[in-house]
């Protein structure tokens, strides 16, 4: 940033009053310019008020974060006192069926373990699918794509980010889940059934795999657009230097671009993770919503955001609502941390880089 800061000509309070005094002292020979200037003195106050008003608007962003945090802490106090830290780990055995249970609002047994598990598994699975694709798209768009195709393709990936999650959910329920159930899941079971990760005991097609695929589609645009941004921030001279040594295009991308942009790409991936952790509607519609923990990725599960969406409006006891608020608080803290980390990483890379002329 080499721009010069303008300092607006703000008359100081002291000089202003002395000027006014002089005007008052000799009212006879007030020139038009002087009168105008003395009337303009009011604008100093107006400027100050305007400044404060804008500052207030800007500070409201801090206020919102603080407000959300306090509301969530107050709301989850009951659950914190009654359940403590065990909330995230405990489980109990049902005396009649001797099955391990986690979440039973009727008998006031609450444990967030299956939701934490579901959120983590579906998010990381989504990253596993989305990251290679997103980096591939970014590499194609910045380094390989013919100029005429670049703008429309970039627009299409951006459009993917603008589709609301409810529409992804609708599409997933009626198109993606039947597709997975009839074609993909049998393949997975046949190929990887021996690992125990894919078992054929769920005929619905819902579950972690379906949630991960729809999540991957949803977080792809943000990862690829940020990766594109950090790749474009790599100076041209780096590319030219590697090419001049006789590298092929891929070697140039690998050594000249990706290596320089890797911190920013990690930031983009973490930002995608943040999106995936908090994604609600589409996941709620396809994950199955059963608070259980299974080894199989094809079985039904639940996620933190999904359980809040499903039960919050219908929670009857205070403890139930408080437990759900505590899950919300955990989600809030985790996404704040993840986003802050990601922003710092992306910022560290793009900071000094000049915007490449389009």
């Amino acid at each position: 940033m080499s721009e010069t800061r303008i300092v607006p000509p703000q008359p100081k309070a002291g000089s202003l009053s002395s000027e006014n005094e002089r005007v008052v002292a000799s009212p006879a020979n007030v020139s038009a310019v002087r009168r105008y200037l003395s009337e303009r003195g009011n604008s100093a106050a107006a400027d100050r008020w305007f400044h404060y008003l804008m500052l207030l608007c800007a500070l409201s962003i801090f206020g919102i974060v603080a407000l959300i945090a306090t509301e969530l802490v107050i709301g989850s106090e009951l659950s914190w006192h009654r359940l403590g830290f065990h909330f995230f780990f405990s489980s109990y055995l049902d005396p009649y069926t001797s099955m391990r249970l986690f979440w039973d609002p009727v008998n006031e047994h609450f444990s967030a373990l299956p939701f934490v598990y579901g959120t983590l598994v579906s998010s990381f699975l989504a990253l596993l699918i989305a990251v290679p694709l997103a980096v591939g798209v970014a590499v194609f768009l910045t380094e390989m794509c013919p100029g005429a195709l670049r703008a429309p393709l970039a627009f299409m990936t951006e459009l993917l980010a603008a589709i609301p999650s409810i529409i992804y959910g609708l599409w997933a329920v009626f198109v993606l889940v039947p597709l997975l159930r009839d074609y993909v899941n049998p393949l997975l079971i046949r190929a990887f059934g021996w690992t125990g990760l894919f078992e054929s005991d769920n005929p619905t097609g819902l579950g972690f795999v379906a949630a991960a695929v729809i999540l991957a589609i949803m977080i792809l645009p943000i990862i690829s657009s940020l990766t594109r941004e950090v790749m474009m921030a790599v100076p041209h001279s780096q590319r030219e230097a590697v090419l001049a040594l006789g590298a092929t295009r891929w070697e140039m991308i690998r050594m000249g671009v990706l290596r320089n942009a890797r911190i920013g790409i990690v930031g983009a991936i973490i930002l995608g993770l943040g999106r995936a952790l908090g994604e609600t509607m589409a996941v709620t519609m396809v994950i199955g919503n059963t608070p259980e923990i299974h080894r199989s990725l094809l079985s039904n599960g639940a996620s933190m955001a999904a359980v809040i969406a499903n039960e919050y409006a219908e929670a009857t006891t205070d403890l139930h609502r408080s437990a759900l608020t505590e899950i919300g608080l955990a989600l809030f803290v985790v996404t704040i941390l993840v986003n802050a980390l990601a922003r710092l990483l992306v910022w560290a890379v793009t900071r000094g880089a000049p915007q490449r002329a389009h």
Partner: protein
Amino acid sequence: MVKQKTSAQTRIRAVTDHAVTGLAIAATVLVIAPLVAIFVYLILRGASSLNLDFFTKIPKPVGEKGGGMANAIVGSGILLAVASAIGVPIGIGGGIFLAEFGRGTRLANSIRFTADVLNGVPSIVMGVAAYALIVSPHISFLPMLGHFSALSGGVALGIMMIPTVCRTTEEMLLMVPHAIREAALGLGVPNWRSVLSITVKTASPGIITGCMLAFARVAGETAPLIFTALGNSFWSTSLNEPIAALPLQIYVYAISPYDEWHRLAWAGALVLIVLIVLAVSLVRYVTSRGVLKGAS
């Protein structure tokens, strides 16, 4: 011998290069495919179930044919109006502060960072916070609050608009050439007047598109409305009562077991996506027209 080895290596390098190019193209195709699939399904399933009733009737009970989502469309409009009334002025004000007053200061940097982080907070958490703040009966000190209402949904959506509007406003203001500001100040225009009538006015196409972007994003939000606006299958335009919203209605219909309701869900989704794509294309058009790329 040595020469042979080099040529084999070169061949391998060339093959790797081609393979990677192929993989990158495949990845791009694979990413565009769901987008195309979603739009094709929306148009096929949605257009066949759109009719005039959809825009003029309220939902019919289960088992009866017909019915529409007129109340949900109006409800979404009311919710978005409340959200914009909260989000747009505060967001623009924050953006003006970041670009005009706080440039380069530590306070402005931390506000910018907080806005970016706030942007990543899941919408469901916003919903929980809005519930605790407005809907929860513990703090019903105002007559309008203390139960599910359109107002609480609007507040939740409005809060979500602030960081987006703030950041785009800032970016657009930063694009306004310094010479324009200097000209205004040189003529003796007070600073506040110069900011509002010169800088903001110059950047106004960009600021408006930023607002539309935030608007489009919030228009499709469902999660924070589930337990604030709650939804309503009848006409309601009161801010003090539960209100229907288009995304909420789509959600309810999509997870229902009735074919007739599925049909309506697809039609609603088509209407929603058409609105959003229109907004995004407008944004794209205005920002690419080059009005704002004068200098920096």
